[in-house]
């Protein structure tokens, strides 16, 4: 069920984003948008700037030109902790959970925000544990002792504690077993059901096409192709062109 959208304004709008790393021009005018509650896939070969795009939205990378709007409001230049509180959740590739903190403490980092009542906190925790029962079992264990798949669960659960409007998901299935991949698929579906928008960066094309409403394909730092996920299949020449080896 998608939330009734009476506001056709995009949730996140990225326009003409440019970033540099030293002299390298990493993002060369990236533009894309994500509607409220929508799952949008971002595909492309390694190194085209997909992760950098997510990082730029999250304020983790300095941009030299371009605009990023959250619900119509410019968020360029805001520090990441402000963006987290404004409703952007970030799940990086290689997860980056706090290894020395327990599962519970990891979740707490997202829960300890101003304006969250004790009841709300308990409710959010319950939700996290019901979606990820394995985390409930391991709640007092240090994050670093979890398996790769469990760490991915924790990274997503942690972002969910922020009650985000959108989650930036960077290659969640990387290095996971097929069984876990389908779990990720389910989680994305559940999040979509709850009305959380997702900007999904992935190498796994079938998963992305299945989970997303729309996709963008990037090459050399810019968006080269954009269409609805339903219009395109894995064997499409476009896919071969931009993602084929």
């Amino acid at each position, binding site marked *: 069920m998608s939330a009734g959208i009476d506001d056709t304004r995009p949730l996140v709008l990225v326009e003409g984003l440019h970033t540099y790393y030293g002299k390298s021009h990493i993002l060369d005018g990236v533009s894309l948008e994500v509607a409220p509650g929508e799952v949008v896939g971002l595909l492309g070969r390694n190194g085209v700037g997909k992760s950098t795009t997510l990082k730029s939205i999250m304020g983790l990378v300095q941009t030299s030109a371009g605009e990023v709007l959250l619900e119509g409001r410019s968020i360029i230049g805001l520090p990441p902790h402000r963006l*987290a509180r404004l409703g952007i959740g970030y799940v990086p590739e290689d997860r980056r959970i706090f290894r020395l*903190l327990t599962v519970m*403490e990891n979740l707490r980092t997202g829960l300890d925000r101003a304006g969250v009542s004790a009841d709300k906190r308990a409710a959010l925790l319950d939700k996290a544990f019901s979606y990820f029962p394995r985390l409930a079992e391991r709640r007092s264990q240090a994050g670093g002792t979890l398996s790769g798949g469990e760490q991915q669960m924790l990274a997503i659960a942690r972002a969910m504690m922020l009650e985000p409007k959108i989650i930036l998901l960077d290659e969640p299935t990387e290095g996971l077993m097929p069984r876990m991949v389908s779990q990720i698929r389910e989680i994305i579906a559940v999040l979509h059901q709850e009305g959380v928008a997702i900007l999904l960066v992935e190498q796994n094309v079938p998963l992305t096409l299945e989970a997303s409403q729309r996709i963008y394909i990037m090459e050399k730092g810019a968006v080269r192709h954009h269409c609805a996920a339903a219009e395109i299949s894995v064997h499409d020449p476009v896919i071969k062109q931009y993602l084929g080896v």
Partner: protein
Amino acid sequence: MEAVAQFFQNIPVDLLLIQTVNGIVTGMILALVASGLTLIFGIMDVVNFAHGELFMLGAYLGVVVLATTGNFWLALVVATLVVAILGGAMQILTLRPLIGRDPLNTILATFGLSLILQNFALWEFGPVSRKLSEPITSHFNLFYLQYPWYRIVIAGLSAAMIGGFWLFLKYSKFGVWIRATTQDRVMAQAMGIPVPWVYTGVFALGAAMAAASGVLFGPLGSINHTMGLDWVLKAFIVVVVGGMGNLGGSIAAAIFISLLEAYASIWVSPSQAVIVSFVVLILTLLFRPTGLFVPTPK
């Protein structure tokens, strides 16, 4: 062998035990000072050269408040709070602009701060040493000495503060924030933790610990504008010997070094006993550079 046995027989046991107590007392204060330094270094990667001056200011403020109110404990609280706020302000004004720059810059900045604070104290309070009278003047009998209760109280209070601080780190919300920030500054921010303020808070906390140590130490010695230097030097030695950024190590090192110095002062003058800490440092750097109490990394 005979000479060694003779040597040890000649030391009065009660003197040794008294020095043990003294060593532990000084060690606890040093541990409190060093903990603040380790905290700031471990979390913010900042070497706070002004730490000794914060200690000194705490002591002076203690004198002032005690003179106005007559209450030592009130002086302790006020001095700690004021210096904590001062520390926070210092961090915001001089260290925040330097975040992300070469660590060289922060060493220099805190060095500049120490100069300012030292000279401010000299200007404001003059070159004559001050005295801070102890709140508890009763003694008890420790062997042939009248040993002041106050010293035991300091040791206890320091231990309590360190313990309280450790609990705070482990269980409170800010404690989690601090630990998360230390492990992964970027992801801490991505989780909504206001990292710049965490740093300010940590610095203020370290400053508070230094100031509290200063007030507690006050009655044991004289208070003047250069007292900070001796303490910060020892604190640095403790931090290096204990393992940089290692809280437990710092505490163990503080007590270890203070005990050795206390024993040494049985035979040599205090200003020479200080060489003991230097020797410990040199040995540590030679054989266990990551810290005396830290298991050597394989």
